[in-house]
């Protein structure tokens, strides 16, 4: 019996490099050496959206995507939004904009509820958190009519749509755009990202959403872990280029990778 299951050696190596790099950057950040992370332009967009809401005296809608948290497949998309929700709620409370969060994630509901309550407390305005109105729960199917009709009658000034989105993307984006809202959208599910990109004023593509979550986190250490992930990408690119060159030279490079 071999030490490592055959066929999985390279995978283990890649995983070890990524984890090691992430841990290294996290350790460095704890020592005070923060990694240089590119500022995403969408971060400034959040402030712009909130300012618009204050100016027009209308609501900001934060719509976290769907999916259930018992599904590993959409879990990263759901989890990454929690940090952003915390940030946006606190900003809204500070600036005095009203935030409304219709959620359709049954297990996420309580977590989001707590996050928003804590954010209002952190901003020093716990009395403005309305447990019945600030965050409401809807089951998956009923969310569509709620958003369409709500956008029609309540006319939010801005909306942030982030999370694991399914087909609702275009309904929500179009309904919100139609009522004049400015939108920031992002998702990591492959089949609805085009509508997020095409229909929203600002968009976050796939991994940018996770990056934003780490970036906006109160803990600066998390931002630095992004640099660790980048090491993984550089590694993949390097192996690819090297592999293409070596294979073109006639060496069976691909066979080496399946040990």
């Amino acid at each position: 019996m071999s030490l490592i299951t055959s066929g999985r050696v390279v995978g283990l190596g890649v995983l070890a490099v990524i984890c090691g790099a992430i841990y290294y950057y996290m350790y460095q950040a704890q020592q005070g050496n923060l990694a240089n992370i590119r500022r995403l332009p969408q971060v400034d967009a959040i402030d712009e959206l909130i300012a618009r809401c204050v100016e027009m005296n209308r609501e900001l809608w934060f719509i976290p995507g769907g999916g259930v948290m018992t599904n590993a497949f959409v879990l990263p998309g759901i989890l990454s939004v929690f940090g952003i929700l915390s940030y946006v709620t606190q900003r809204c409370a500070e600036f005095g904009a009203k935030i409304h969060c219709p959620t359709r994630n049954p297990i996420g509901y309580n977590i989001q509820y707590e996050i928003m309550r804590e954010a209002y407390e952190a901003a020093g305005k716990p009395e403005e958190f309305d447990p019945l109105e600030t965050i409401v729960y809807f089951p998956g199917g009923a969310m569509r009519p709620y958003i369409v009709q709500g956008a029609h009658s309540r006319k939010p000034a801005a909306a942030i749509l982030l999370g694991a989105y399914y087909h609702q993307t275009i309904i929500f984006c179009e309904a919100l755009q139609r009522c004049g809202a400015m939108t920031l959208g992002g998702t990591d599910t492959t089949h609805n990202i085009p509508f997020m990109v095409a229909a929203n004023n600002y968009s976050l593509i796939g991994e940018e959403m996770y990056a934003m979550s780490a970036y906006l986190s109160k803990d600066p250490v998390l931002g630095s872990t992004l640099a660790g992930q980048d090491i993984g990408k550089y590694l993949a690119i390097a192996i690819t280029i090297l592999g293409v060159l070596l294979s073109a030279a006639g060496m069976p490079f691909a066979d080496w990778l399946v040990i």
Partner: protein
Amino acid sequence: MAVTIGMLVASWMCVMLYTILYGDQPISRFAEHIYMGTTAGYYAYVNLRFYWDKGIVQMMEPGKIHFIIPVILGICVYARLYTPTRWVYRYPMAILMGSMLGVSIRTTVFSQIIDQFILGNLPPLAPIVGVPAGMAINNLIIIFGSICATVFFVFSHDFAGPTRYIHRIGRLFLLCSFGATYGNTTSYRYELMAGTMISNMLRPVELLPYTLGFIVVVAIALVVIFKMGIASWD
């Protein structure tokens, strides 16, 4: 008889639900709440039935008493509904989340990173030498495009100077892919719509007059609702 009534109900539900396109008014809200109740009940029943069959019933069988663990943890999930015991749900969630993260990370690295990006870009899956020129060029485009698009997701580098062109080309490749999804999705949505109308509203032909009649009734009702100001048109 039950089938005929069912078909009528189905087509009428569809007509009422389609009125959400005409604004926020009572007709669509009525249908929406029926749908909400049915779907919530159905989903909850099937899922809890799974819990009952695989958990509680199995627990009662001889030698399977250890299934009492998921049964108790399952009850713990509901502790979150009551604030003082909220922390209890963290235990079942921790078990779920630990397993989920583990199983997804351990295979993602193979199927999505190594097999897909690295091996997929290498010969022999993407031959460059010894194949027709068109194929070699295609493969080079894939390799170049996927590397550029990966660079788009690099966050620890400011894209100024020449590297910003790589970033830009990467974005264009991504947008091209999204465009393809967008075209397919558009056709898929129309497929959904045609499917809905074929299977619920327009067939069988004998029931068509009832459906059309109901559409007329709903249209008149909508006009009345908007004229009387029960719901606003704008």
